[in-house]
């Protein structure tokens, strides 16, 4: 198809200022349109590329939407059982102390079935990085209630809205983790606007630098959308996220250099 408004004089290799990193494998992502997983994957890979640590990085993927993360990230990876990624990562880091080790987990994986593994890896101060995508829903299985589902939020298993009396409270696991002494750095970010994406990348870079300096565990929550699960368009979902998720899950650093902010 003929492309209008192309500028051949600008469109030269030496003028490239942004391009998907080659550490993202060149295949279509399995995520829904507008999903924050793809963006977070790319930021993670940009950090690994910029630090030149592809050869020294071992990742652990979860069960959930990002179960296939190892098909997209051009690094060695292990697929964990549901919730167990921090256990795998703890062992890997202890057996390979000079490798960069991270887990990539969703809210069901990290804050429900894997709560014990998460809390204890954090509490031991494992020198790893945990990247936690919180979209308040089980995306992969079709939009069921997650530990982080907001009060009143409708999901496939809370069709009339999350009722606190019968279904319990949404879990602010990141706040809990920030209080554990083994954890060095805790932050909550987002990836729905360019500025948020850039901040998330900086947070990931900081986390990997902390790992390099063997200063303890770093924990990055990314509040993200699940437009399929929320039954909104991607742009509507991002707006809904700003209006509903961010007040309950406020963005920003919670702990820096082992000190609560």
């Amino acid at each position: 198809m003929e492309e209008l408004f192309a500028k051949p004089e600008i469109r030269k290799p030496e003028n490239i200022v942004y391009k998907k990193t080659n550490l993202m494998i060149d295949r279509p992502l399995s995520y829904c349109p507008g999903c924050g997983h793809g963006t977070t994957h790319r930021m993670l890979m940009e950090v690994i590329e910029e630090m030149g640590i592809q050869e020294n990085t071992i990742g652990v993927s979860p069960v959930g939407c990002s179960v296939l993360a190892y098909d997209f990230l051009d690094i060695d990876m292990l697929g964990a059982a549901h919730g167990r990624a921090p256990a795998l990562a703890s062992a890997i880091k202890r057996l390979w102390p000079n490798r960069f080790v991270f887990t990539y987990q969703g809210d069901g994986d990290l804050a429900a079935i894997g709560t014990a593994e998460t809390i204890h890896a954090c509490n031991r101060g494992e020198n790893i990085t945990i990247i936690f995508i919180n979209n308040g829903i089980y995306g992969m299985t079709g939009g069921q209630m997650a530990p982080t589902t907001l009060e009143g939020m409708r999901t496939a298993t809370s069709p009339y809205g999350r009722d606190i009396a019968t279904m319990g409270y949404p879990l602010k696991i990141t706040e809990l983790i920030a209080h554990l002494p083994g954890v060095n750095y805790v932050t909550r970010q987002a990836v729905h606007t360019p500025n948020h994406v850039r901040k998330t990348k900086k947070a990931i870079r900081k986390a990997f630098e902390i790992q390099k300096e063997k200063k303890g565990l770093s924990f990055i929550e990314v509040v993200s959308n699940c437009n399929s699960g929320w039954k909104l368009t991607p742009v509507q979902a991002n707006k809904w996220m700003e209006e509903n998720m961010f007040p309950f899950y406020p963005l920003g650093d919670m702990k820096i250099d082992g000190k609560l902010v």
Partner: protein
Amino acid sequence: MGELKLMKGNEAIAEAAIRAGCDGYFGYPITPQSEVMEYLMAQKPFERTGMVVLQAESEVASINMVYGGAGTGKKVMTSSSSPGISLMQEGISYMAGAELPALIVNAVRGGPGLGTIQPSQADYFQAVKGGGHGDYKLIVLAPASVQEMCDHVKLGFDLAFKYRTPVMILSDGAIGQMMEKVVFFDQIPRRTDEELMKECPWAAVGKPKNREHIRITSLDLDPAGQERVNLKLQAKYKTIEENEILYEEIQCKDAEYLFVAFGLSARICQKATDLARAKGIKVGLFRPITLFPFPIQQIAATGNRMKGVLVVEMNAGQMIEDVKLSMGSKVKIEHFGRFGGIIPSPDEVVNALEQKIIGG
């Protein structure tokens, strides 16, 4: 030449692990096998050989730590007892699916449920038929002495890496707790990272520029792909059955009757054999050492020469199913078992032979 020591079975497991060049032990305390981790912590293998020893928050975490370590090619293990092994089935199934080498020790105690802390063999089915979900097998070694506890650690690691499969040592509370002489093999150095990468090109150790990235997983959403995974596993189990069967025959040559027993029950049957022979009953003992692969042909050949076979187990009758499948229906096969943590006496076993087989 090896080193002679007097030691508990569980301690022998731990000492053998250090000497076998084990890279990491991940466990959670449970009676009757807590001595494994206690011994390791006291011995400071992290200073002796650089081995990692970590007390996890649960058996679920332990086995998944083993999964993580195994996926990076490290020589890793865990130990537990029945209720803990039940919790580990998830991770064991994942490791079987992802074809990872690991060593798992089960000091079996009486069940079901929390059961008892006394010895039992009631986890035979769980160990040899897979245990977790999916079509898979573990190589299962059944030590009958503290010496074999030691030897099976080295053998177990060798088999685990030879076939890229989890291996289980099916011990029990008694063999774990009893003290015997044991001759240890000399220290085998832990592999360097370079040696590991050469031996385990499949391991996720970090991706160099010149190779494809490695994905350790048991997931294949394409049914045709998952069937191929299963066919490959089944082919591997067939090779294991063809090559790795271990068993022992005691006083079988002139025997008219046969005990079939593994582990602690075999120890009891050995004494029962002597008692019965003193009474003029010509009985022998067939002891499978590998429970998978099961010595099918060997039991059939020996068992079918007999007038009758008594399968003695500390359970309600589990291995007897495999003995019957091996032998067919030509010869009478009966079961004698005590369970819930009761260890049968040799006299009871002779009695059972007389009543169920000879007089029955």
